[in-house]
């Protein structure tokens, strides 16, 4: 295919007038759900405005191509955009950006997982972005943590992540795709030269940050002040994740109760 045309590209220069820092409440509600993939041990689905990510986790299995014993288990993470999820069609082969995101995903989840509980084994985490409207990686991290919890993988805490876009002296919380592409370019002369996207993953119960990924160029003050903003955003997502997990556990317990009742009755019929 020698000629391609992007069809739904909107002009980004017109965004200069938008003031950043919309709070979480201004944006469309987020939806989170666990237990969406029946074939997986644990799974979760998240919708943050238009960004849709599904993640599934499987039982620990032997690490392929490994000899020797390791005291800690490993997490194998894969992050993938669906071919139709972005404005331009994406190939099925994982490209460099997806591979980097897979690494960031692993680094954010590893501190929260009790890896000593499954020595010499590997837990597979697969995240698939169905629609990308900005901050897909942060959504994937939150989703993956929920899927791990749903899969009963022992964890220290739920990980939540948020994205902040910086362009000049404007900051965009949870930027959309247009805002992300704006933040990747240098602001025009006359303003500060800060620009970039920061994805940070937090473990709120321990008040610790498990991952800080920054692209672009910015002052140290800008970067450090963003941490506060990101932390506040994560607190609200954390509440949502907790509620979702609680709902999932309650549903599972009810189902187990029903099964026990049926099992008992079937035993009586059998004998």
């Amino acid at each position, binding site marked *: 295919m020698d*000629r391609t045309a992007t069809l739904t590209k909107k002009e980004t220069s017109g965004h200069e007038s938008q003031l950043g820092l919309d709070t979480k409440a201004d944006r469309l509600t987020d939806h989170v759900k666990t237990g969406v993939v029946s074939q997986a041990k644990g799974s979760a689905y998240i919708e943050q405005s238009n960004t849709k990510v*599904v993640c599934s986790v*499987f039982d620990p299995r032997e690490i392929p191509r490994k000899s020797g014993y390791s005291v800690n288990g490993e997490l194998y993470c894969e992050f993938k955009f669906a071919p139709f999820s972005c404005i331009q*069609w994406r190939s099925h082969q994982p490209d460099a950006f997806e591979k980097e995101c897979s690494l960031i995903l692993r680094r954010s989840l590893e501190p929260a997982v009790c890896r000593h509980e499954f020595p010499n084994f590997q837990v597979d985490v697969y995240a*698939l972005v169905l629609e990308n409207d900005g901050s897909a990686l942060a959504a994937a991290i939150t989703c993956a943590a929920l899927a791990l919890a749903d899969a009963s993988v022992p964890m220290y805490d739920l990980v939540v992540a948020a994205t902040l876009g910086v362009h000049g002296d404007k900051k965009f919380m949870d930027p959309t795709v247009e805002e992300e592409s704006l933040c990747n370019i240098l602001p025009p002369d006359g303003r500060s030269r800060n620009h970039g996207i920061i994805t940070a993953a937090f473990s709120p119960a321990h008040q610790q940050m498990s991952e800080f990924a920054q692209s672009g160029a910015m002052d140290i003050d800008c970067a450090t002040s963003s941490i506060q903003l990101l932390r506040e955003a994560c607190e609200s997502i954390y509440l949502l994740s907790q509620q979702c997990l609680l709902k999932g556990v309650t549903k599972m317990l009810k189902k187990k109760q029903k099964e026990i009742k049926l099992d008992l009755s079937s035993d009586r019929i059998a004998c």
Partner: protein
Amino acid sequence: MATCYKSIHPVKYYRDFLAKGVRPDGRDMQKFRPVSINVDSIKTAEGSAIVKIGNTVVVCGIKAELAAPKAEEPNFGYLVPNVELPPLCSPRFCPGPPSDLAQVSSNFIAETLTSSGCVDLKDLCIAPEHLAWVLHCDLICLDHDGSLWDACVIALVAALRTVKLPHVSYDVEAETTVVSPEKRNKLQVHNTPVATTFAIFDDEILLTDPTNEEESLSSGVMTIVVQGGQLCSVHKPGGSPLTESQLQECINGAMKRAEYINKLVNMTLESLGT
């Protein structure tokens, strides 16, 4: 107790149920699982559909690109279907190159598209020999619990019927392309093929719409694609032999289901239009 018995001797567990004329999930042998269709939920794609048959979930996204037509077929555009079975949908798929099942599924979907003629490739041509549409139809399975091909075909057709292509004008002398994303034309879809899968258990019993477990325990699987009262494809890749009467039963079942699915798809698309 029942779960122990199921994991030690799954075939006998199934046989005990089938002897009573019912399957472990409560259906009888000819009953289909409930189908739900959701269209146009993915805004980055030109057309999209999500289909759920029981636990099986397939997402279809259609992206359009522009390219030059093939030299030997200058009036035809491209329709590129691809089925992806990512490791997230089932523990039996590993990351890496497409598995055998994914490749066979892609081939099946491509053949079904050409056999049924639901999209005329001439409609995708903008300027013969110079410019044509390429529709990348990507079907991703999010949960594989049997009847994969049924869900794929429904998702593909539903997604195709929601595709709106922007108006493109091509100036042959100047070799310039002008794309107007605001003016959109709906893609012409001429008909709706519907696939139905059957499994043969123990060489005798026919199970309609098998789950993943049933497919793995059965001795043969067959898929029939029906379109407008005609058969588009009868695909039985080996497995236990079938008698004529069993085949007849399957075809009748497939025809009935096609009517139901057609109604469902029409209803979903109408609700989208309003």
